[in-house]
């Protein structure tokens, strides 16, 4: 498991601070995230986990009053927050899957190809092939192949979430951020998404926010444990969850809190 050489991390986050108006949400985050691995972000509600994802996907400014008030984030060694590629390219490369699946008001096929269409100007002949590729990737193809033209919103919640993952994957991202992607789903759909995460990690880096410690154990190799806007503990998932040092993390992991 332990890698012997250490390549440049995908993200290098130093002293990152974020405020919503006067309220400080992240109080100086320091961490590195490796490429092509799954990093889990754990911690109680409201401790800044989703905020960090928004910073990485450059969508923080869409939240009213929110701003980065200090620190740096490097992506492949360059400043993410003023990256020469520009905000739109960064959002394409660092995709995000929200907690609540939200199909757009269009067909299943157009949903999958929404971002890809914009970025690559896919010809309509190729669109079907491409849509099939990504729907197969998320294991949805067999369930929807006969109704590609029906609206995405007619799918079940679990299917919708996989549709949203396919939509992000069609952008061919280098990183996929997932904000509690299974919290609204039944166990069966959750298992499908966890399998998908394990498959995807061979190609891209995944950062998953989750409340579910067992899920973090199942899918992630690294983990960050957030408490009140700071990282209380970080390292290999097994180590953090088996031998936590921080007393509050211990309490949560042992099931006394959280």
């Amino acid at each position, binding site marked *: 498991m332990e890698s012997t050489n250490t390549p440049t991390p995908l993200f290098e986050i130093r002293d990152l601070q974020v405020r919503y108006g006067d309220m400080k949400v992240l109080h100086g985050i320091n961490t590195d995230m490796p490429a092509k691995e799954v990093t889990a972000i754990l911690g109680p509600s409201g401790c800044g986990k989703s905020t960090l994802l928004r910073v990485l*996907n450059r*969508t923080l400014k*869409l939240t009213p009053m929110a701003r980065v008030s200090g620190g740096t984030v490097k992506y492949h060694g360059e400043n993410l927050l003023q990256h020469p590629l520009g*905000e*739109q*390219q*960064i*959002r*394409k*490369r660092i*995709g*995000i899957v*929200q907690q609540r699946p*939200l199909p*757009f*008001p*269009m067909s299943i096929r157009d949903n999958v190809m*929404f*971002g890809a269409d*914009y*970025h690559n100007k896919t010809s309509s002949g190729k669109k079907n092939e491409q849509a099939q590729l990504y729907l197969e990737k998320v294991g949805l193809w067999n369930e929807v192949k006969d109704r590609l033209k*029906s*609206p995405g*919103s*007619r799918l079940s919640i679990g299917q919708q979430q996989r549709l*949203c993952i396919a*939509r*992000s994957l069609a*952008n061919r991202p280098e990183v996929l951020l997932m904000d509690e992607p299974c919290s609204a789903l039944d166990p069966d759909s959750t298992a499908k998404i966890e399998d998908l995460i394990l498959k995807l990690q061979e190609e891209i880096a995944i950062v998953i926010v989750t409340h579910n410690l067992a899920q973090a154990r199942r899918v992630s190799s690294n983990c960050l444990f957030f408490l009140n806007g700071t990282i209380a503990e970080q390292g290999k998932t097994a180590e953090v969850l088996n031998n936590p040092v921080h007393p509050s993390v211990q309490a949560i992991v042992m099931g006394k809190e959280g």
Partner: protein
Amino acid sequence: MQGQQDHPSGHDSQSSRDRIVRFLCLLALISGVGILILTIVYLFIESGIGKGFLLRALHCFTGEWRPLATPPQLGMAHAWVSTAMITGIALAISLPIGFGIGLFTSEIAPPFVRRILTPALELLAGIPAVVYGFFGAVTLVKWFEVGFQLSSGETILGAGIVLSVMMLPFVASTSGEAFRAAFQEYRESVLALGVDQITMFRRVILIRAFPGLIAAAVLGLARGLGETLAVLMLSGNTTAFPDSLLSRGQPITALLATEIGETAVNSEKYHMLFTGALFLMLLVLMLNLAISILKKRVYRGLYAS
């Protein structure tokens, strides 16, 4: 009435209080709908239904209005055409501007501008029609007289322009609500894919907001069809058939308001005026119904839920 309101749960005071509230709400609903139904029934009766009603109805849309001729001619074709022209002009102006204002207040404007603009628009809706009429009379009517060298500046076009201003607050606030809801729902998810704002607006927001935009247009249209005083003051209120945007006209509401006071009850003219009112009422009702059905169909086709 009460029977179907019964709920299987419990017989405690809570449930009897629930039942009383439910009954009072139902009563309010019934009286509201009842007034609507009674109005239609009343219009049917006063339009002299039964006694040559079909012929009168046909004549209402085709003939000329010459009540003093012998025999009197009581057709209202000119009024329906005036109404269609004035409302059409008003919609053509107020929809694009209203949707623009709606989009601006919902997404583009900074919050402090929004806080000023929204109540200002509501004030615009509260200005009495007669004030709009006076305003149009001292501005547009004067300008048209000079600009187009007309003997009298009262025109279909002028009435349509002022009516569009009267429709604007309804169109703007309803479409603004629709845009706001759509942006709130989709903004983050769509932009997170790295697309630009125009693509988001064109492919997602517009489709999501579409039913709301239709509702805005219908509200504006209903307001326009029913408006009486301002269009009466600005259209010239003559019974001649309007043949251009710069001719004078008399929308149906203006004709009814002008004539009803000097009409003998139960005369043929009286029945004809009520026939006009009945069709105006049915037109607005049908428009509402048709568009609410269309809205659902189109929405399902585009989006479905």
